[in-house]
């Protein structure tokens, strides 16, 4: 093995604390293959090209760093007012009591944890498959680690138009919990669903979601990552899009010591559309990293990346986003914007936008900026009688708007704006 000794040692130290579930059933082979990938790649270190800005040590330490529980006072959980099917995990463990019956018109729902003995054909084709495809050219060892050791997750096959959204709710009740969840979603041709996720999940959470969308399928994803300040999370989404399919994902993050959200999308069928967006607000000891890799491998596809970060009191925001246009992927329309609003001089934003284009008839634009609050706009609002703190909040919401507007559903959009406004009013000064 060509791994540096230190990396190999760190990897083995972590692996020593993990074990595969006793009944792996049909997932046995993909898990073993994933474990071999982890050993070959080694877990991330700060010298790795894609970990230069985010220190991975808390994500790969043998034990999860302790994370104090967050007390939500009288605030209703996000999405609470919506009609949706709830699936609840507490520190990564399925809570049947708190969950709805896993039945919904238009979709078939199983749990990874309960499915080992069953032969779910479609899931066999997805589990670990998209993840395994997603390491070229960048290694994503935490994803392989997840495939190898995931204890549970949700398997959703969308066969029609889902009657209502599915909401996976993650609760964090133990200060030392260390959870690996792995979801597989297969959207069949022409089918459609919305997945909502919310909550911090665990002291340390490694989550992976594979989304395979057949021709003409539509998948909407909106998640909020909980307000626990001390939790750590590494998440991956691997999506593969067929012809004329649509994938739209939006993530809101407020608080969290360490968050690394990776999104790896392959547009494999003509006229497919992929949008991935994020709005995050961080105050103090906060590291938030969006790492996105979109591959255009078909004609006439559209992709958008819209990421906005609001940072203060020493918070750090990171964006690493790439658009790869393969030979022959003509008429590609790619857009990528990453922006930060730095509310003081202590915070920082590190951005690495990349384009790699091997087709000659494409339109790709990208931009990345860091800025402060616009003093002219602030004065305009104050001159109308809006106090400085409220005026600043309005301008922060204005800054985040382009990302939040990526959410198609108006009700959800308003809910997210309301949550952001609430967070801002609690974190003034």
């Amino acid at each position, binding site marked *: 093995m060509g791994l540096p000794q230190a990396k190999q040692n760190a990897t083995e130290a972590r692996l020593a604390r993990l074990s595969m579930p006793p009944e792996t059933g049909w997932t046995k082979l993909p898990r073993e293959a994933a474990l071999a990938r982890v050993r070959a790649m080694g877990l991330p270190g700060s010298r790795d090209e894609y970990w230069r800005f985010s220190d991975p040590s808390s994500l790969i330490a043998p034990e999860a760093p302790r994370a104090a529980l967050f007390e939500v006072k009288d605030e209703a959980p996000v999405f609470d007012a919506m009609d949706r099917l709830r699936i609840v995990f507490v520190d990564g463990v399925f809570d049947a009591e708190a969950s709805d019956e896993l039945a919904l018109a238009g979709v078939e729902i199983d749990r990874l944890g309960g499915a080992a003995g069953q032969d779910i054909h479609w899931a066999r084709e997805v589990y670990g498959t998209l993840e395994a495809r997603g390491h070229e050219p960048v290694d994503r060892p935490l994803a392989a680690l997840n495939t190898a050791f995931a204890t549970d997750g949700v398997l959703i096959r969308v066969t029609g138009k889902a009657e209502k959204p599915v909401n996976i709710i993650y609760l964090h009740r133990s200060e030392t919990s260390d959870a690996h969840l792995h979801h597989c979603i297969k959207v069949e041709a022409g089918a459609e669903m919305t997945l909502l996720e919310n909550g911090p999940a665990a002291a340390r959470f490694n989550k992976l979601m594979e989304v395979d969308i057949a021709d003409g399928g539509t998948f909407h994803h909106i998640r909020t990552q909980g307000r626990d300040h001390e939790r750590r999370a590494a998440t991956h989404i691997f999506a593969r899009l067929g012809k004329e399919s649509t994938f739209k994902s939006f993530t809101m993050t407020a608080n969290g010591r360490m968050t690394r959200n990776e999104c790896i999308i392959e547009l494999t069928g003509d006229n497919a559309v992929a949008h991935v967006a994020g709005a995050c607000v961080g105050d103090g000891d906060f590291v938030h990293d969006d790492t996105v890799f979109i591959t255009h491998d078909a004609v006439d596809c559209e992709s958008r990346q819209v990421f906005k970060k609001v940072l203060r009191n020493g918070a750090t925001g990171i964006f690493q986003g790439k658009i790869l246009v393969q030979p022959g992927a003509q008429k590609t329309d790619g857009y990528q914007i990453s922006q930060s609003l730095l509310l003081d001089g202590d915070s920082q934003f590190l951005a690495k936008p990349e384009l790699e284009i091997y087709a000659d008839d494409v339109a790709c634009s990208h931009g990345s900026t860091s800025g402060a609050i616009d003093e002219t706009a602030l004065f*305009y*609002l104050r*001159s109308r*009688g*809006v*106090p*400085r703190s409220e005026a600043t909040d309005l301008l922060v919401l*204005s800054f985040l708007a382009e990302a939040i507007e990526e959410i198609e559903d108006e009700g959800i959009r308003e809910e997210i704006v309301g949550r952001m406004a609430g967070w801002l009013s609690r974190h003034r000064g």
Partner: protein
Amino acid sequence: MLEIKNLHVKLEEEGKPILKGVNLTVEAGKVHAIMGPNGSGKSTMSYVLSGRDGYEVTEGSATLLGEDLLEMEPEERAAIGLFLAFQYPVEIPGVGNMTFLRTAVNAQRKARGLEEMDAATFLKEIRARAKELKIDAEMLKRPVNVGFSGGEKKRNEILQMAMLEPKLCILDETDSGLDVDAMKLVSDGVNALRSPDRGFLVITHYQRLLDHIKPDVVHIMYDGRIIKTGGPELALEVEKNGYADIRAEDA
């Protein structure tokens, strides 16, 4: 109502003096116009009165209804009744015009110790005022000033003025960028707000706005001072002969 005495102001960064001893009194119920060439200090005066950063008052005072404006934050000035209609209204993407106005109205009511206006009353009020200014429902929903034409932006300023019901309104070159029809619409909006307990300070380069908003008093500002004060006929004189004659008189 508005009392400006011997006001001296310099630019904070460059230290360059802009206002060099302005004296001006605006009474309730009156419309005062300030005319003057570019760079005479007209807009600076509007910014200093409303509290924009970047200016340093080195001498003199400015009070509104007896309260010292220069010591207050911009929002406090607004709460006691000062309103500035901007020459270049600012675009704020992602914040609905209605949300913005409701936030402003309620912030001012709160500062004055009044109860917040409930959503239904606010909606009724704003619809009525918007209709008078030919502002449609669509414009109320759009983000503040984003994609508005020059005329729409200025009408939106007047709508804000109407909703906030200030005591003293400063209009900073409200006529700039307006065609004749838009100017008429904006002027009608302003005239509808004229009342015995409200004063206006209208800053403009040109006499034409004053055809629509008839002033009681006209001041000529030049090089940071008011060099001549008269009735509406003074505006006509400027229109005919330019500022040169008045400057010669002053010299």
